[in-house]
């Protein structure tokens, strides 16, 4: 018995020797081994999950998502307790997107501005920017979020003592004071613009104006290319666009838009556009934090452009703005865009910290869904799938842009 085993093992070793003597064979074996190991690990997880499902008497599937949610969500005008888990999940996703997209749009210019001021010769601006970057980059985001939420926004006066600004003298709606702007622990209230009957004309004018502006820009560019001199394309475009929109507005008259002014009620704001403290804290926190990283990315990009390029630009008489726009940025962007993508992805994923400051983002809402249904595996898989999709989509978009700004070699 023993000898039989030994001889079989010897045979196997002989096979192994032969196989390892061949370079391609070795590589192929390594690939297969890794692949199989990965598959085994995945299979182990899958089987474990299936067994757990069976034990707890749960049926894997998405059927539970159409059941009534039964809980409320603060950041949604439309969602009510009688809506389904699907609706709740959708509201969570919308809230995440609301924070992520606006956050990216605010963090990018802020970061660029900080980078430029850090690179500027002005010692005060440069020091302040450096201090900003170091402080925000080197403290945990969660701490910052809690600081903004509990340390700043919740320290504002209560609703009864809200800071209000009412240029028209305000008034009383019967429910509470009418105002243009109110600021309190309950957040910020602003007038809401409600499209009126004639608003379609304004929207049309905005679109038409945009097309006309584009035409004007290209016309000015061509003219300046043939005749020389500056194109002033941007200025012309703005004027053209503003003229079209303004004339449409005049034509429609006062019915274009209505302003809904917020009121300060007993427990909350009525009407208007309301920025809850949770949303504001999350947005401020994410923007402030990510802007510090973006500033460093932009600074790195600009500094990667060699000094000779600056000197050459100045030597041909470009102004500082022109130098930046035509010489530095095209080269710097190539370096900036890939790490900038990372920061965008980070901002999106970091928004899941919202649960600590009570903002009902995708993660927060999903956790509640998981708690209530016990379908943690499915819900977790859904959360992961959504964040993955968001990340892949935004990196795809950024990769496309990156390809556009890449150095074209002729």
């Amino acid at each position: 018995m023993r000898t039989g085993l030994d001889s079989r093992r010897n045979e196997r070793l002989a096979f192994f020797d032969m196989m390892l003597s061949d370079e391609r064979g070795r590589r192929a074996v390594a690939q297969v081994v890794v692949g199989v190991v990965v598959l085994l690990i995945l299979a182990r997880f899958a089987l474990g999950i299936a067994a757990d499902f069976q034990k707890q008497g749960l049926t894997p599937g998405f059927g539970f998502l159409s059941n009534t949610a039964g809980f409320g969500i603060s950041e949604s005008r439309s969602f009510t307790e009688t809506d389904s888990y699907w609706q709740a999940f959708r509201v969570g996703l919308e809230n995440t997107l609301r924070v992520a997209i606006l956050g990216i749009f605010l963090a990018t210019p802020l970061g660029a501005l900080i980078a430029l001021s850090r690179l500027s010769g002005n010692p005060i601006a440069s020091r302040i920017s450096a201090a900003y970057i170091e402080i925000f980059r080197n403290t945990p985001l969660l701490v910052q979020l809690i600081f903004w939420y509990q340390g700043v926004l919740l320290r504002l006066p209560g609703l009864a003592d809200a800071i209000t600004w009412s240029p028209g003298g305000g008034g009383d709606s019967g429910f509470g004071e009418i105002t243009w702007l109110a600021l309190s622990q309950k957040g910020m209230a602003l007038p809401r613009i409600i499209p009126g009957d004639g608003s379609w004309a304004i929207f049309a004018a905005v679109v038409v104006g945009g097309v006309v502006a584009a035409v004007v820009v290209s016309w000015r560019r061509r003219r300046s290319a043939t005749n020389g001199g500056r194109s002033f394309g941007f200025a012309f475009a703005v004027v053209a666009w503003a003229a079209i929109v303004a004339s449409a507005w005049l034509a429609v008259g006062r019915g274009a838009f209505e302003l809904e002014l917020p009121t300060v009620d007993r427990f909350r704001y009525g009407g208007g556009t309301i920025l809850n403290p949770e949303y504001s804290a999350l947005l401020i926190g994410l923007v402030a934090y990510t802007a510090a990283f973006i500033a460093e990315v932009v600074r790195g990009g600009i500094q990667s452009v060699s000094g000779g390029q600056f000197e050459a630009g100045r030597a041909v008489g470009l102004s500082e703005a022109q130098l930046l726009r035509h010489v530095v940025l095209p080269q710097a962007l190539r370096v900036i865009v890939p790490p900038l993508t990372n920061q965008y992805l980070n901002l999106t994923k970091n928004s899941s910290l919202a649960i600590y400051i009570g903002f009902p983002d995708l993660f927060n809402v999903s956790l509640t869904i998981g708690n209530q249904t016990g379908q943690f595996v499915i819900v977790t898989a859904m959360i992961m799938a959504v964040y993955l999709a968001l990340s892949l989509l935004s990196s795809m978009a950024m990769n496309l842009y990156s390809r556009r700004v890449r150095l074209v070699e002729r």
Partner: protein
Amino acid sequence: MFDQLRTIAIITLLAGGFIASGIVACGGGDETDAVVETDAGTDSDTDALVDTDSPTDSAASAGNDQSAEPTSADAPASEAAEVEQSTVAGGRLALVQSRGELICGVNDQIVGFGAVDPDGEFAGFDIDFCRAIAAAVFGDPQAVSFRPLSAQQRFTALQTGEVDVLIRNTTWTLSRDTQNGLDFSPTTFYDGQGMMVRTDLAVTALEDLEGASICVGSGTTTERNLGDAMREAGADFTPVVFEGADEVFNAYESGRCEAVTADMSALVSRQTTLPDPDSHSIMDIVLSKEPLGPAVLQGDPGWADVVNWVVFGIIQAEEFGITSDNVDTFLGGDVPEMMRFLGEEAALGEGLGLSNDFMIDVIRAVGNYGEIYDRHLGPDTPFDLPRGSNRLWTDGGLLYSPPFN
């Protein structure tokens, strides 16, 4: 050419071997002893996970273990000796009596219900019920030793016979009553999800919270209970949901929310830690049912009766108006009901295996229900928790004792 073929053959063999061993490791095979062993190992792993995670599910395995026990004689030798003893020789009561003290499974972390006081003594609402049982059995409220148990340990401790009775704010649910092999005694505290509000808002009903923000923890059913209750009240509200209890109460404290919802017992102890506890009040409203009471091991009706009737007796004493101070004045009275209750007429205690005047000892030791409640949760405590459902049925509450006849 030949070389390539050979390589491919080897790779195929190896891959096959890996997959085969993989199937074995995953417990999908069915050939050898080794396979069976691995299989069993895997299963018990998952079991352990499920057990620690949810108390309800621990039922499955634990319930099976002990379901064999009460069939006395042929119980396997490996079973816990004490459990066997309790079922064979006169039950748990005889065991407790021969031991000379009661072992009570309690909580040591909820001030007001079960915690260690500054003198190092266990004190609290639940603790007093332990002392009451000890007084009933031994005539001595000190003849009890306390075992602090965590939420996970508690059912196992009862099932293995480590404790005689579990009085550790345990909610009576169907699955616990059946799958965990417990028998619940009458509810001693009707807890439930409650609501705390700022006193200056003058809110008395859920309807008054129309438009308010309510801070809530993202717990198992808390959010939904809130949603259900507010929907029923027809009040529109804004839930502000946090993951941890600390964040919930921080936000409430800072004024973000007009109200905060959590279990009553959590609310009362949190209230005492707020900077100005008096400016907050707990509404006299319950959003969900959490009946808490003692539990004993299933299958020993004699012992369960003792615990049940001590609890009933404490409730009945309040209904009679008998307190630890005035109990002596009731002795030698002429109301038949009270005479039976205090063991002066008939022999009710005997039926339980106790002395006939066991309720006198109980009342002298801990007093009636109202006294216990007031001592730990009442107006003179930092909690000042309204009785709510924990009033006598005669006062519109849920406390009701069957007659002592």
